[in-house]
Structures are given as C-alpha cells and as structure tokens.
C-alpha cells in the first residue's frame, strides 16, 4: 500500500471520528435537573413571591427562609424530605411597601451563607 493511500485512509478515519463527535457531543439542548425555582408574580392586588425548594440530598434538610420587605422581616423554616420539593409562598401587599425593596434569602442546613438570595425592586402601584 502506498504512503499516500495510507494517509488518505487515516484522514478518512479522522473525518469519521469528528463526525461521531459532532453527532454525540454537541450540546443536545437537554437541560439539567431544576433544583430550585424562584418566582415573583404581580397579581391583581399584591405581589406573590414563590420558591420551590428541592432537597437533592439523601437526608432530611432544614431550610430557613428570610423575607425582608423594606424594614419588616419575616422568618420561616421547613424540613424537606430527600428528593422532595416544598413550595414556599409569601404575599406582599402594596401597603407593606415603602421603598419597594424585597429581599428573599434561603439558608440550607447549618450553612452560614444563603444558597439562594434575591432582591427585587418593585413598584408600589
């Protein structure tokens, strides 16, 4: 077999390899599992803050939730079973708002830093 023919066959093997890589390794659009979902929705009379907390671990986990509406602070805690989801809902009424700054913080277990922290700047009207 001549040298050129060998190079041609090797080139074809590389080409097939790249074809397979393109077919299997290019991102397919399958999104990763959703571990948390945080929503703020403007209703007719109030804003609704909703958080889906999923415990991805194999043990019970305590979550502590802080919601600060301007200067007022609301605290809640919940224990979520393994592989289960808990939905937390908090209503924010216009009369509670002054500056319009709403902060949500979610603490997981003994961790000092929140695993989820969001600040919303919402209008009173």
């Amino acid at each position: 077999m001549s040298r050129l023919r060998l190079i041609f066959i090797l080139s074809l093997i590389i080409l097939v390899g790249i074809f397979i890589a393109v077919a299997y390794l290019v991102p397919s659009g399958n999104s990763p599992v959703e571990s948390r979902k945080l929503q703020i929705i403007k209703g007719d009379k109030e804003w609704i803050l909703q958080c889906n907390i999923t415990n991805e671990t194999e043990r019970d986990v305590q979550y502590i939730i802080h919601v600060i509406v301007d200067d007022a602070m609301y605290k809640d805690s919940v224990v979520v079973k393994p592989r289960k989801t808990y939905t937390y809902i908090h209503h924010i009424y216009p009369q509670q708002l002054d500056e319009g700054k709403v902060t949500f913080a979610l603490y997981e277990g003994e961790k000092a830093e929140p695993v989820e922290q969001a600040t919303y700047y919402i209008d009173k009207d």
Partner: protein
Amino acid sequence: MNRQKSILHNGLALKIGITWLCIFLLAGFFIAMKSNANPISMSIIPEVPKIGEPIVATFKISNSTDEPSTTSYQLYINGKLVESGSTVIVPQTSSKHQYAYANTLERGEQVNFVLKTSSDRGNFVKAVSLPAYPPQLMSSFVSFAAFSTSVMSSMISMEYFTNIFGAASGINTGIVVSLVLIALLIFLELAQGVINNKGVGVLVRYRLSLRNVATILLIIFIGIIFTRIVMIMAI
C-alpha cells in the same frame, strides 16, 4: 505506466486535500458549538405583549460542571434593575427564576430584558427584546421566507426561525442543509477526478443530477445565512 501512476497519485492527493478540508470545517463547527454552550438562558412570553397583559420573564442558570457553583445575577427591564441576587447551584442542576408583571407599554413599543451573570466560570450577558425585531423588518423577511418555501401558515413567528434555523438546539434544519451540501460538494469533487480518468457513465448521470441539488441547497444555505445576519444586526 508512469503516466497512470502519476494520475493516481494526483487523484489521491486531491482526495486527501478534500478530506482535510472537511475535517477543518467539521472541527470548526464542533468547536463553535461547544464554545456557545451558554450556562444561562432566558425566555419571555408572550412574544408580542398587549397593554395590561402579563409578561413573564424566565431565566435559568445551569451548572453542568461537577462542582457547586455560586452565580450572582442582575435582571434589567428597559435599563431598570428589577432583580439581583446570587444562587448556589449544585452540580448538574439548574436554578430557575421568573419575574412576572403587567405590561404598561403600548403595542409596538419595544421592551428590552438584559440578564447579567457572574461566576467562577466567567461573566455572561443575555439580552432579549420584545417584539424581537422591528415590525417592518420582520414582516418583509417572513413574507419572503414564507413565499419561497410555501409554508405560509407556519412561518409567521420568530419562534419558528429560532427553532428551525437557530442555534438553540444541537441539530436543526440549517445544520442538516449545511452537512448535506458539504457531502454533495465533496461527492461532486471526488466524482470529477474519477470521470476524468475513466469516464464512468452512471457516475456522470448522478453527478449532473446532484449538481442541480447542490445548487438549490447552496441557494437555501445562502438564504439562511443572509436571514440570520440580518436578524443578528436587528437585535
């Protein structure tokens, strides 16, 4: 004998050249697709909001690595900061955020959403406008595309272009057309060498038919590229 050997040598050299051209094209495509794998995505519904109707902005921050990742983010609507925060995402999961409010803008006015994120994987920005394109531009391109492909009933929204020709999914019509076109062009080139040497009748007929197919695909391909460029410029 020597002449035949020389022709064979030249033919092989040409085949190697074409094969390596394909390798470079495919490798370039592969690298481009991998580098475009964005950890943030954002969608807004509805695409054409009416006054008083709710607009829901949804953005997702993913962590496809094997280490927990902390991402800080800011969401702006028409330049105004409406949400900021940080999220710790466990490996191979994502965190989804939704901001829903009532639209106060008149029909036809554009509303712009910008999401900025920052993490140890780098800084990312995602911008979405509603409506996505100025109405005049959108209608002219949709009319042209709908007329040329005879599917006027379905080609009426930006979502159609994004799904069919966009880079949102791994394999789409644009990529399939490109790959078929590359394969046809390779065939035409390879067949030329064989025909010159031996004059195979069947191959000549195939080559002539496929040349027409390649021309049509090339026109479609150029159309896709042209539409894409104009849409990118319009954002």
